[in-house]
């Protein structure tokens, strides 16, 4: 392959273009952010929750140098795994198949949904009970099943609440963090039969437990995500605190797991440190309550476990990120959410304003690959580039650096050999003209002197409204006297 970048990008784009995933337009993105910032309620709940998560994470890492060693190690393991990705994927497939797991590959969301719908149809499934899976959100699985007349029910407490409310998760670890307990109490009273209003958190969770217990028993299929897939043994690892995930993967007759192709690691010994830094970075726990390693369907003589296990390996733009050495680092992510918790923008606007499945810093660097830059070219600009995300990332993804790179990809002039689908989608001939002219002026002292002389001379002519710039800032006006003139006077 002479031009691997273009090949893989073109290959995935032809399939992906067919299906625009629901996304807020640039205009809507601005409006949503505006609304979020002006919602004191929302800001308070996010501020509180993020402070809480930040403090808990900090308590897990009292020693800076130890943290740094662990981050370096985790980065190393992820990079090592990615450097062997094709081999590990083949090994994973072979070992899972040996263990009796059926492995499927999906280039995009449509294919993944079609595969899972096929499995559901074969079992005449009416209800699918779901453990937490961001990838299933990414492919809008619930919608696809709904259209086919199949109920897909969330069983993670947060996801369950969000689903009852007809909303989307606002945080990848704490999906319902944007809701107050009073809102949840009202929601339960309205939507759950036989439940009257109570804002006692303990009671609310007990109600959820009771409702969902029945659903586990009734469901035909359980769906889960995967945190790590171990190639050497053919094992799927799942991290959780509630215990709903292991119910989904044990009680129904069929278990379907879905994951991105980047989640594979070589061996269990490489999982241990990643698991440790994941829970510590995500929720400030030394370890999660449950860690399940699934290596196959029910064996002869066993009394529980699903009779059929399927794994769907999803590309959906990941191979595009993989093709570029710098962008490949995006795939190191272990989805801990720490970058979101520490992001000054995320903390203020919350997760819903972004309009993408993955919000916050990780969302800004992964969504352009999953959805193409046409729909996401503004996302990399929703950042102050303060660098907090890169500093806390447990696998040392240089997020700010990637944001700058993506801004470049989005705003450069469209060309023939793009690394990304939608390259140049944010290109503006006027903006580019302005910057080029500015560069010409700034690069030569003579030009700059002349420009600044003219500017201070004619400063009265500067418009008071400067389109987007003055929406939230004071207008740019040249000073009455240039610095060089002031300096000369003092000499």
């Amino acid at each position, binding site marked *: 392959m002479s031009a691997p970048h273009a090949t893989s990008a073109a290959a995935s784009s032809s399939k992906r273009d067919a299906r625009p995933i629901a996304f807020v337009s640039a205009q809507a993105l601005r409006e949503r952010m505006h609304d979020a910032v002006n919602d004191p309620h929302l800001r308070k709940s996010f501020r509180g929750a993020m402070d809480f998560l930040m403090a808990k994470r900090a308590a897990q890492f009292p020693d800076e140098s130890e943290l740094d060693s662990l981050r370096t190690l985790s980065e190393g393991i992820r990079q090592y795994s990615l450097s062997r990705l094709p081999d590990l994927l083949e090994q994973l497939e072979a070992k899972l198949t040996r263990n009796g797991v059926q492995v499927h590959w999906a280039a995009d969301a449509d294919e993944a949904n079609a595969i899972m719908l096929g499995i559901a149809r074969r079992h005449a499934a009416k209800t699918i009970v779901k453990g937490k899976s961001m990838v299933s959100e990414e492919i809008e699985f619930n919608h696809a099943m709904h259209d086919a007349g199949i109920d897909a029910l969330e069983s993670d407490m947060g996801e369950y609440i969000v689903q009852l409310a007809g909303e989307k998760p606002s945080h990848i670890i704490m999906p319902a963090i944007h809701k107050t307990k009073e809102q949840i109490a009202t929601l339960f009273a309205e939507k759950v039969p036989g439940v009257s209003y109570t804002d006692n958190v303990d009671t609310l*969770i007990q109600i959820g437990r009771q409702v969902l217990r029945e659903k586990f028993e009734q469901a035909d299929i359980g769906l889960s995500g995967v945190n790590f897939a171990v190639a050497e043994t053919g094992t799927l690892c799942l991290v959780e605190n509630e215990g709903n995930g292991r119910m989904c993967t044990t009680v129904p007759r069929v278990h379907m797991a879905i994951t991105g192709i980047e989640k594979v690691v070589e061996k269990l010994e490489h999982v241990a440190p990643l698991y440790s830094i994941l829970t510590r970075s995500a929720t400030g726990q030394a370890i999660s309550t449950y860690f399940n390693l699934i290596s196959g369907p029910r064996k002869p003589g066993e009394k529980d476990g699903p009779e059929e296990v399927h794994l769907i390996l999803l590309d959906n733009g990941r191979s595009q990120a993989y093709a570029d050495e710098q962008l490949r680092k995006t795939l190191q992510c272990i989805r801990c959410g720490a970058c979101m918790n520490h992001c000054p923008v995320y903390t203020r606007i919350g997760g819903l304003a972004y309009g993408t499945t993955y919000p916050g810093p990780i969302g800004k660097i992964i969504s352009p690959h999953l959805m193409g830059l046409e729909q996401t070219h503004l996302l990399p600009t929703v950042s102050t580039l303060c660098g907090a995300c890169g500093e806390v990332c447990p696998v040392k993804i240089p997020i700010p650096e990637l944001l700058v790179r993506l801004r470049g990809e989005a705003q450069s002039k469209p060309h023939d050999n793009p690394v990304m689908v939608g390259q140049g989608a944010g290109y503006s001939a006027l903006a580019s003209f302005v910057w080029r002219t500015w560069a010409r002026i700034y690069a030569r002292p003579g030009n700059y002197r002349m420009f600044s002389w003219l500017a201070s001379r004619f400063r009265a002519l500067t418009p008071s409204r400067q389109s987007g710039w003055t929406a939230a800032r004071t207008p740019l006006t040249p000073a009455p006297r240039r610095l060089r003139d002031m300096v000369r006077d003092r000499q």
Partner: protein
Amino acid sequence: MSSRDEIIEAVRGTLGSNRANAATVRRDADALLEELTAIRPDLLADDLVEAFIARLVTPKVAATAERIADASELPAAVARYLEARGLPTAIALQPAAVLQALDWSGFELHDRVAPDETLAVGFARWGIAETGSLVFHSDAETPILANFLPLHHLVMVRASTVLAYLDDYAAATAGQRPPRNVNIITGASGTTDIEGSLVLGAHGPRYLHVVILDESAEPRALQS
């Protein structure tokens, strides 16, 4: 071309000449693990079992623990637990041979765990001192639903199978064909999904009690 081949070719094609040879790969993989041993956190005590227990009873893990010197003492320990909490003597018992061999007279046993089971007694293969975790393997004798459904989960684990770190478990089982399901459990089921407040007993057990079978416990008890 199938999606499978397309995906594998896309990632393989872009790696180009960067593919390392097998020897380098092995060296890199092992080097990663060497670093790991250097940065392990300290345990709560020098003695593994003591560290394990100390961790189990921290508020974060929120389990309770006791030691017995002989497996035959387990039914009495269970009876004490039930009595202290005023619970009925009808309990679910995992069909593990070590448990089935004991004298359970006075209890009403069943091996099928009901969705609203009050208490189940199970057997864990390993304990992890660093995190206070229990490791369960699924097989014909040890169905795993018993670990998920009851409100109270009582678990026996042998002191000799308590390991220091989770990575020791990974190392101890390396090269073996894994059981269908490995369940690593640390404390009671919980959620912080409503306003970040912790509620126990989300989808799994609300109470976890660990009984450590420590055949060396008796002489030690005599010394103290």
